[in-house]
């Protein structure tokens, strides 16, 4: 006790007591301030808040804007909104939710996902809100529910607009589809814009231009009774509808391209080389977006997404294939421009190629060889030996440099989500990816677009357009903005010391289709305009150097990919395209005829519009 008293000195006690007094004063002042605030709200602002509280029988409800339409270049509707019905529930008016859902399930089909989404929305909603349970009701379901209405208190069938894609499968990869918004998608966007809707663009244009198509949410002031039940709408801040979008796509050409691919797996990308406007971007097999909008159950969606043919996969911008001989015109041009070969130099091809001090033998696709070939012959006949030698002379560094300037190894920058970059290998690339040094043999393979080289159909089409434009690159795009300039390309314009090289390259590609020994001469018959093209046949598996490639004995999945790239008319190009057919066999037999179908259709259309007066028809 004595110790306590010694420690409890008067001075110390005074310190704390002073502070206690200050604290008491502070508490008093702050409470006085609080009282002031409350008095302000309850006395000075009483009229205002009293009126608002009266008005508070008025509830704010979000009004969903109409989603913008999507048109093709000719004004054909690709995505529209159709009247539909959806089923909503006001949880406060339901006594036993589980029992109600079970009873409903006897009348309408409910997936596990729909139940989950409903329960999630229910937890987040405030009182007396209608929570959507099923977004699309079939006509039978609507009829049934109307008849049985009295059995389902709290359940409402609401008119709604549902997204519809009139062309179904055609162009589905480009247009995309809308679906129920997921929690993850909601987190990365502004949730305020999604209060009144449960849909969001999932893929394609619908996703890329979600912000334009969506519009701005409106508000509805709804009067409610004392229990909170809506009585009528007092006021409406109308929503701003989403913007209608016009695409550069020509849905008719798209249909023709998809039909040309038929049952093959593959892609065709066609564009206007002058400005990069994408005319068709086909990927097969496809899917019906209308099914996805209606909401597939999990099993059906899994079946679709895990189908080994990958119908949901957009091969045109996500599929990466060895470009094979399609790279040859680019490399031939690069070889001359970089001084490693002249246009007239003839290289002898006897069907095999060897490197000093390397055991391996590289073979031409034609076992007996092509004899003496120059620049034009090498492209027209697709002589491998010529390009083995050219690759050996240039080396991987120069090849990487020149091919990169044509856009190989980089994404083309289209306005669609999910585009992948191809691979244009280099020493650095191999070291970073595989941790290995570069070998000479790999340079030789790169010379015919094999080895590590990979490209998407889109990127091949864009690079071909750059050849058609004689060095001017374009950025591929799907959104057509009338009166606006096309978006700028990432690549710089390629200026050559000798501009006649462009003409030479074009001529070599014309020879592919129109020459006596051109690899695609079969499609050159009966043409009243000229196509400049290049075939490609890309190995899927390595064939041993002494083995023969025998289509008969190989499993279909190991058949070669067939490729063709082209532009036409050769002297005034209006279309540039790339065709890739997975396991299609050979470029000349499978891919080139598809290209001709698409090019023919486009020329026909240009002719009808009088844009190609020189065509004889």
């Amino acid at each position, binding site marked *: *006790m004595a110790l*306590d*008293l*010694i*420690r*409890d*000195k*008067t*001075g*110390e*006690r005074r*310190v*704390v*007591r*002073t*502070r*206690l007094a200050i*604290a*008491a004063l502070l*508490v*008093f002042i*702050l*409470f006085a*301030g*609080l*009282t002031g*605030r*409350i*008095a302000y*709200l*309850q*006395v000075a*602002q*009483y009229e*205002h*808040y*009293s009126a*608002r*509280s009266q008005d*508070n*029988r008025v509830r*704010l409800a*979000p009004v969903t804007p109409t989603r913008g339409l999507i048109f093709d270049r000719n004004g054909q509707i690709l995505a529209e909104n159709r009247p539909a019905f959806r089923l909503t529930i006001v949880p406060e008016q339901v006594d036993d939710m589980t029992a109600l859902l079970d009873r409903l399930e006897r009348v309408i089909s409910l997936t596990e996902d729909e139940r989950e989404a409903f329960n999630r929305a229910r937890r987040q909603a*405030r*009182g*007396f809100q209608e929570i959507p349970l099923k977004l699309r009701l079939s006509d039978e379901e609507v009829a049934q529910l109307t008849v049985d209405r009295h059995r389902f208190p709290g359940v409402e069938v609401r008119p709604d607009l549902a997204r519809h894609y009139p062309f179904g499968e055609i162009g589905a990869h480009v247009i995309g589809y809308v679906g129920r918004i997921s929690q993850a998608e909601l987190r990365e966007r502004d*949730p*305020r814009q999604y*209060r009144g809707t449960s849909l969001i663009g999932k893929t394609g244009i619908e996703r890329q231009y979600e912000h334009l198509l969506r519009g701005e949410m409106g*508000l509805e002031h709804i009067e*409610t009774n*004392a*229990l*909170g039940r809506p009585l009528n709408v007092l006021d409406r801040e109308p929503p701003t509808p989403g913007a209608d979008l016009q695409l550069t796509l020509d849905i008719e050409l798209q249909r023709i391209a998809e039909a040309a691919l038929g049952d093959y797996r593959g892609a065709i990308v066609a564009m206007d080389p002058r400005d990069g406007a994408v005319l068709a971007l086909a990927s097969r097999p496809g899917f019906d977006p209308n099914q996805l909008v209606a909401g597939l159950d999990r099993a059906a969606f899994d079946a679709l997404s895990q189908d080994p043919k990958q119908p949901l996969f957009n091969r045109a911008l996500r599929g990466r294939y060895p470009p094979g001989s399609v790279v040859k015109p680019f490399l031939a041009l690069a070889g001359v421009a970089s001084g490693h070969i002249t246009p007239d130099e003839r290289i002898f091809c006897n069907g095999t190629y060897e490197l000093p001090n390397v055991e391996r033998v590289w073979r031409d696709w034609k076992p007996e060889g092509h004899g003496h070939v120059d620049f034009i012959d090498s492209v027209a006949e697709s002589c491998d030996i010529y390009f083995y030698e050219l690759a050996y002379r240039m080396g991987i560094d120069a090849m990487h440099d020149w091919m990169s300037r044509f856009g190989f190894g980089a994404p083309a920058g289209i306005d669609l989500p999910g585009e992948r970059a191809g691979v244009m290998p280099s020493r650095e690339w191999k070291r970073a990816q595989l941790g290995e040094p570069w070998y000479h043999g790999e340079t030789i393979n790169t010379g015919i677009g094999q080895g590590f080289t990979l490209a998407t159909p889109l990127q091949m089409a864009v690079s071909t357009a750059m050849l058609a434009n004689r060095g001017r690159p374009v950025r591929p795009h799907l959104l057509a903005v009338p009166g606006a300039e096309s978006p700028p390309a990432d690549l710089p314009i390629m200026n050559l010391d000798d501009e006649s090289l462009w003409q030479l390259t074009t001529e070599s590609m014309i020879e592919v289709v129109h020459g006596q020994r051109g690899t695609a001469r079969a499609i050159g018959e009966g043409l009243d305009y000229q196509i400049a093209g290049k075939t490609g046949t890309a190995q899927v598996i390595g064939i041993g150097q002494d083995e023969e490639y025998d289509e008969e004995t190989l499993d279909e999945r190991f058949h070669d990919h067939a490729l063709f790239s082209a532009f036409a008319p050769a002297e005034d190009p209006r279309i540039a395209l790339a065709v890739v057919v997975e396991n299609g066999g050979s470029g000349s037999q499978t891919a080139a005829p598809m290209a001709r179908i698409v090019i023919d259709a486009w020329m026909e259309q240009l002719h009808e519009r009088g844009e190609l007066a020189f065509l004889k028809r």
Partner: protein
Amino acid sequence: MNAVNWPSSSVNAAARKATGGLLQRGLHLDGVLLALLTILGGVGMIVLYSAFGGRVEPLQSHLTRVGIGVAAMIVAAQFSPTRLERLSPWVYGGVLLLLIAVLVAGQIGGGARRWLDLGFFEFQPSELMKLALPMMVAWLMARTTLPIGFGFAALALAVIAVPAALIGLQPDLGTAVLVGAAGAGVLFLAGVRWRIISAGVLLACAAAPLLWVFGMQDYQRERVLTFLDPGRDPLGAGYNIIQSQIAIGSGGLFGKGWLEGTQAHLNFIPEQHTDFVFAVLAEEFGLFGVIMLFALYLAIIGRGLWIAHHAQDNFSRLLAGGITLTFFVYAFVNLGMVSGLLPVVGLPLPLISYGGSSVVTLLAGFGILMSIHTHRRMWSS
């Protein structure tokens, strides 16, 4: 040095007569505080009954929690300040370990790690820190001479910052603020120099932008932005603030009457039985009811400060003052938030709001206050 008179029988008798022998000497409870708390609890039940739309069942579970709280209060009152002082470092250390355990193994509740599951019972260690921290800081301050110097102030700041940061990481900003305030309150009472206080305030202002960028979750930033402009998102975060202000303002001088609040009964007030319960009271009882409530709070805080004033050693004084100030901050932050003066932090209105382990800690805290008051030695000074 004061003259010490051992308590004479007459002084003793007078003291017994004044404070009620059994309550004070037997149970170590303070009659005045007990009466005020009972009235406040009663007011709480009346408001909650309305907030629950006239349903009785939730009130029963609320009463159960209050019962546990009263038991905790009585138990706490039996610990003499001397024992509490001895226990302080151990309690503090133990709760600190629990906080770390929560971060490592806590139950995810509402997106934050706050709960510790003990198998039979889940609880929030951060609640215990509201008492353990002022105890620890008071213990520390009792080991030096007051007013404290710079060294002890720095040490105390560290003792405060660690648990506050751990709670902030859960993340539970509301409790972190309260725990920090509890420690800072004791520090303030210990006479920390004004120079250090102003430096601390300046530092806090400077740290605010950093906290904004690095220390806050998106939803917390959203709350602050919404506080500054409730019209930002009238159907989302701003809704709570707008609706609770409408409820308060429309109450007027005398309110709409018990069970008559339209805002409350049409479900316009969010969380009307927990964080926003004050809006229900203000709507139904008006400014008159609000002033009565404030008077009650002021009386309780006043009694707490009075107990601190009359405590007989530094530890008791500081602890009593610290607990009282924590209670004040608790009430003030909630009232400020509901009336739109402060951003929304999830804190209930003490002893009115429904449920939560907060009732138990709050009443245990008042138990400590009562212990300090009833364990005084009788002498005249």
